[in-house]
């Protein structure tokens, strides 16, 4: 029922879609390939085909502008079926909201899409707009919704605890924070078992940086160019992309060469990049540092995996300089990378401090810092207190998330579906020149668009176009990278192979018309 009812809005959308892309513009630009249009049309008419078999047809068909108009509706991939209909939405429309945002919210608050999407409801890996139209959420609220929007187990935990006690602070005892801390600690290797709860990734990284500076008695911290760690004073210093850095004093941070296999000057040679960190220590500091912080896969930076061999070499240099190694797992953590629970595990290292947020609570405002008892000791020198941190509702949700990840084997699922998706994206890369790179791990994938594969010129304009088209066809992805030319695909981990196919098919169609 869902497919039938949902395909019609999609189909109805198509005429407008075709008009807006301006077919006449495309005629003559792409080299026409032969297409078995009529045969396919007859074969497909009236048959309830599966999206993936359809996509295989697509990848072999040619595009012919004139004939596309005849029966364009069969070319649009169908979203996988989903047995859920949102109740009708009676709230303010997109225009009203947009006006209020302009009147009352930050002028620097940006949004995606020319016509921003009014998202009113979410269910697992799908989102619904004000008209009840379903979208595949391939961005996960920025790698945040890991179990799925409104996952029943997580909602139940939240509702149950909210009905009992929302907030009391850690001045009193409550089992929720203790149980969650225990469960979280059990997921970490080594002696990493003391947990500090905060309300965000920024707060977590701020605390981690302060702990490192206190523990070592040093001030200098090294982070990577292209990193993102937060927007408070110290974390803005660690963040390393000018778009996110305001013109204020951000002392004590040194930014090392980014071990970027695609754009980096040393390719995938992790050890060569690591030498830059040693140089920074030798020439830019007293020789002793507070620490090093990095994401295992850069998120905001455009899903950049650190070159293999990099982290072990750097961790070694940092330790020799007396510093602590901080792993920012805000995006890569909680089973997202599939092969491991934590991103740093794929690099064969054990950090001294791990920070996390985003996926930790499936969207509830929560962050955490985990470290060793020895390092945690430094905070006893004075008082560190976080009023909301570790509140019963958020910690109950966090525990529910860990249980869901385990019970539904989301890590394995992320690995299987992620690898499948990556393969299909790589196949797409073979087909379209504009795809410069496909990278990532599990369900943390990036697709970099370039107008020239040799020069790697960022396709800044084209990506906006593709993103809009994909949204019109029902797929929401994210964008990142310094040039904004990288698709970030970080869906809720309940994302299926069918969803993956749908995503790739939609991307395929869009690119085929460029």
């Amino acid at each position, binding site marked *: 029922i869902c497919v039938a009812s949902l395909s019609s809005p999609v189909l109805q959308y198509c005429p407008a879609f075709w008009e807006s892309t301006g077919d006449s513009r495309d005629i003559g630009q792409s080299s026409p390939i032969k297409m078995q249009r009529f045969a396919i049309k007859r074969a497909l008419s009236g048959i309830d085909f599966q999206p993936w078999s359809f996509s295989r047809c697509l990848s072999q068909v040619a595009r012919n502008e004139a004939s596309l108009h005849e029966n364009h509706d069969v070319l649009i991939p169908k979203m996988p079926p989903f047995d859920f209909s949102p109740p009708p939405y009676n709230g*303010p429309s997109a225009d*009203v*909201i947009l006006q*209020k945002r302009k*009147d*009352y*919210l*930050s002028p*620097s608050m*940006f*949004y995606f899409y020319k016509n921003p999407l*009014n*998202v*009113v409801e*979410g269910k697992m890996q799908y989102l619904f707009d004000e008209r009840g139209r379903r979208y595949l959420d391939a961005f996960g*609220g*920025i790698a945040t919704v890991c179990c799925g*929007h409104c996952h029943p187990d997580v*909602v139940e935990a*939240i*509702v149950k605890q*909210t*009905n009992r*006690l*929302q907030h009391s602070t850690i*001045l*009193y*005892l*409550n*089992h929720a924070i*203790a*149980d969650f801390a*225990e469960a979280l600690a059990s997921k970490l290797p080594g002696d990493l078992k*003391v*947990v*500090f709860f905060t309300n*965000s990734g920024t*707060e977590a990284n*701020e605390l981690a940086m302060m702990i490192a500076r*206190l523990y070592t008695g040093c*001030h200098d911290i090294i982070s990577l160019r292209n990193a993102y760690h937060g*927007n*408070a*004073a110290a974390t803005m210093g660690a963040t390393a992309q000018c*778009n996110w850095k305001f013109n*204020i*004093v951000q*002392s004590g941070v040194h930014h090392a060469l980014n071990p970027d296999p695609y754009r980096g000057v040393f390719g995938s040679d992790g050890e060569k990049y690591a030498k830059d960190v040693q140089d920074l220590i030798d020439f830019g500091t007293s020789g002793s540092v507070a620490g090093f912080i990095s994401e295992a896969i850069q998120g905001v930076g455009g899903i950049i995996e650190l070159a293999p061999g990099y982290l072990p070499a750097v961790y070694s240099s940092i330790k020799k300089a007396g510093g602590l190694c901080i792993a920012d797992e805000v995006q890569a953590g909680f089973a997202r990378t599939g092969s491991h629970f934590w991103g740093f595990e794929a690099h064969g290292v054990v950090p001294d401090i791990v920070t996390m947020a985003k996926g930790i609570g499936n969207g*509830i405002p929560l962050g955490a810092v985990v470290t060793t008892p020895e390092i*945690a*000791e430094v*905070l*006893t020198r004075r*008082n*560190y*207190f*976080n*009023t*909301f*941190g570790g509140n019963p509702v958020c910690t109950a949700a966090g525990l529910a998330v860990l249980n869901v990840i385990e019970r539904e084997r989301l890590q394995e699922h992320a690995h299987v579906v992620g690898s499948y998706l990556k393969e299909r994206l790589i196949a797409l890369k073979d087909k379209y020149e504009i795809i410069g790179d496909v990278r990532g791990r599990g369900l943390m994938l990036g697709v970099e668009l370039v107008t020239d594969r040799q020069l790697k010129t960022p396709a800044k304009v084209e990506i906006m176009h593709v993103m809009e088209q994909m949204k019109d066809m029902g797929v929401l992805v994210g964008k990142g990278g310094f040039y904004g030319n990288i698709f970030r695909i970080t869906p809720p981990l309940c994302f299926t192979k069918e969803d993956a196919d749908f995503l790739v098919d939609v991307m395929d169609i869009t690119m085929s018309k460029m």
Partner: protein
Amino acid sequence: MALQRSLLKRSVEAAKAKCLYNLSLRCFSSATLTPPELPPFDYEPKLYKGPLADEVLEKRKKFLGSSLFYYYQKPLNIVEGKMQYLFDDSGKRYLDAFAGIVTVSCGHCHPEILDAIIEQSKLLQHATTIYLHHAIADFAEALASKMPGNLKVVYFVNSGTEANELAMLMARLYSGNLGMIALRNAYHGGSSSTIGLTALNTWKYSIPQGEIHHVINPDPYRGVFGSDANLYAKDIQDHIDYGSSGKVAGFIAETIQGVGGAVELAPGYLKLVYDIIRKAGGVCIADEVQTGFGRTGNHFWGFETQGVIPDIVTMAKGIGNGLPLGAVVTTPEIANVMAQKIQFNTFGGNPVCSSGGLAVLRVLDKEKRQKHCADVGSHLIGRLRELQQRHEIIGDVRGRGLMVGLELVADRKEKTPAKAETAVLFEKLRELGVLVGKGGLHGNVFRIKPPMCFTKDDADFVVDALDYAISKL
């Protein structure tokens, strides 16, 4: 003669005895002969089958670090809350006179707030502001409508610390200057910049916290100039003239210092200071994390009691009745400066917290909580002042509405902090069923800042309990 002398002696004895008797009547009223009773409350807590205090404490020690402190020798295992009461694992009820540190504004598990949170949690917890959603827009509009002047651009964050961090960033960007000024005894947060603003050594770690100067605290009780705002304000002018380039980024203050022990700023102080700061090119930030949302009774915002309009207002705690939420409200001019770069908060303004926040504003309005704070607050302060007459140990009673502080001293002249006695009374109050907070650099100030549904009966109970506990010291 001898008869007259013995008669005189007897009458003096009788007079002494009568005097003593009257004295004893005043000091030992009927309320203190037996422990007072909690006001009745028609509610049964849910049956609790979870871990008990000892087990939870063990896990905390193991997995939450030794720096995570707690109240009471035998910490309290709080498992449920309803309006102004909390329940422990044995179902015992306590009067929550601290509201999770001035945070639970409407009342624990207030039904309307619960409704809003639960309904929204079932629809959409999180999507970020890259998409539209009505909750954040509606809440921003409602919040802006509560602000005076041109304060109408709202930034949502997740805590008071994040809000103050952002405010400081705005001040520096807008003014183009570096130096910030804060008050001694202030608390503004625990992150790298806000820890610099915070001015209590117990909360300041040994890390660089540059370009911030702390001025003399305009503390009417302990301050060197008493309540003379002019002299305190002069300290700021002096710092600007001698300790800075002549230009500053901004000034931040709580109108009633929270962590610092419910210290009200000397009257007229902010008006003078705001003028000085603005002349030096700086912006004025009002930290309303504790005083906001009608708590002070006569006004919605603490700064209104000082007759000023700040350039930036920060808030958290009570804004969401306990939801992790914070906000910064400023003018379009200042907001525009922030637009030069991207400033983004992943969780900030999420649908659930925004819905909760909007519900809080509605409840405060509907239940007329601000007026309620004024009424109950003045009743509470009145009774506490009476208590102060009878107990030497109470050095000062201060505050406004339901943001009240009680400072205990061993000597009223010297104002020697009665740290040990405060600790003992603190425990005693808990035994009697009253949970208060503690504050001040020396930990000798009781902070009484309950959920705003606190009643006159609750106030009487607190005072009677205090009376009983102090007289047993």
